[in-house]
């Protein structure tokens, strides 16, 4: 694997407690965990595209909704930092503003990559 284990060097993108909660809900069922992660990855990837599209179209309502959904999904898998950025974007768009939205989206996209990598590790471990 090319990505070195960077735990300890920077804050983790995914809270271990949230993963533990999912393990409890699934009662140790690994398939359930993988299912949730895969739903997270697919759905969020689609919504990230929506963020860019709605921003380009100046559609604050669509932007707010997509950010809201991403936030909700993130909270399920313990991606709290990404959830916080999404909440910021949701509130910004909810106030009808777009200033700084592009930067927030970029940050969310970067955080998403980290989250996906960490979730894959959790699914194996």
């Amino acid at each position, binding site marked *: 694997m090319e990505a070195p284990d960077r735990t300890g060097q920077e804050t983790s993108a995914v809270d271990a407690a*949230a993963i533990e*909660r*999912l393990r*409890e*809900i*699934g*009662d140790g069922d690994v398939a*359930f965990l993988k*299912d*949730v992660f895969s*739903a*997270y990855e*697919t*759905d969020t990837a689609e919504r990230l595209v929506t963020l860019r599209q709605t921003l380009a179209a100046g559609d604050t309502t669509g932007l707010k*909704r997509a950010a*809201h*959904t991403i*936030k*909700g*999904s993130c*909270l*399920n*898998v313990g991606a709290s930092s990404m959830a916080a950025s999404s*909440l910021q974007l949701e509130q910004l768009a909810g106030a009808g503003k777009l200033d700084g939205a592009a930067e927030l989206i970029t940050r969310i996209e970067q955080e998403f990559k980290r989250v996906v990598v960490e979730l894959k590790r959790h699914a194996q471990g």
Partner: protein
Amino acid sequence: MSTQTYNILLVEDNAVDARVITEALTKGGGGAFALQRAERLSEALEKLRTQAIDLVLLDFMLPDSEGMATFTAVRKAAPNVPIVALTGVSDESTAIEAVRQGAQDFLVKGQVQPKTLHRAVHYAIERHKVQTAQLKQAHGGKKGKVIGVIGARGGVGATTVALNVATALAKKHKDVIAAELTGAYSAFYDHFFYKKSRAALSDLGALIKLEPEKITACEVERCLVKLPSGLGLLLGPQRVEDFAELDPDKTDALTRVLAGLGSYVVLDLQSHAAAAGQVAAKQCDFVVVVIDRTPACVVAGKVTADLLQNLGVIPVRIGVAIVNRQPLPISVDVAEVLNTMGCQLVGVVPTATDACAEAQRVGAPMVTSDPQGSASGALIEIADRLAAEQVIGK
């Protein structure tokens, strides 16, 4: 633990939330919950309209509705179904407002655990039952099962079905009432009392002169005619001077009082129910649409079923009874009838011209005058089916 399976509707557009909640609810639930999901408000309203749902788990932020508007729309569409709001950490205030307006509880998504979810759902259903019972008590005590019988059109034999079903029920249950919801001319009178003087019997005529709030159990009981079988009859007006259009508010009050008086109340509803009949139909636990097998009557039956659904009577609470009064030149087969009408079959009554004539002659329903006949057998079966839990619900 209860062995009953609750039908839960999860209204949630977020795929991840839906997956986690589904797992949390079904895992360790011992099969207590059957879960289905709607992703949009419109889809949820359609499911509530067409199915018997025990509880709604409701996210307020949906693609086609958001905030309190979502809650209000679901509440309006299904006032008798308990709602548990699903909320994010940042929008708890909306959920609290929903609880204030009648939601049973709220759960914060992302923090849901199987145990808390099971408990919240069970409590919400039980608490809702208690509240509904208390409300009923406040409105006049116990509530019997109300069965509406409506002809797809005049002359199909709906009154005959209503009276026979009520009589069959009265043979097995106490406090059965058959009521004729018409403002003019009593067909019940024709069936039972045509040899007696019209003035000798009390009827609806006196009741419909009262204001709605004056239509009390005491007043209604005074107007009931008790038959030897134990069946209580509420006849439509018999004297021309009493004929009047039924008032919806009075009919509403009357139906509620009847539901409090009888363990089973069979309402003979007028075909093509006008405002008053519609009000009564809404209060029915089950409505039987009576048809014959002529193509035109089947179409009329479909219109009646559609009307009932528009009134909010869900399809599982509507059934069709097919009456074969006489052999027909063109006859639609049962499968096609059910296919056209889109509702369940409660019974098929075979042709019984002689038994009908005999019933008329003695002034008693067929199930009494000819209990062994095939038509009586079919009518008794309909009554049994209507009394069974699986038809009329919980």
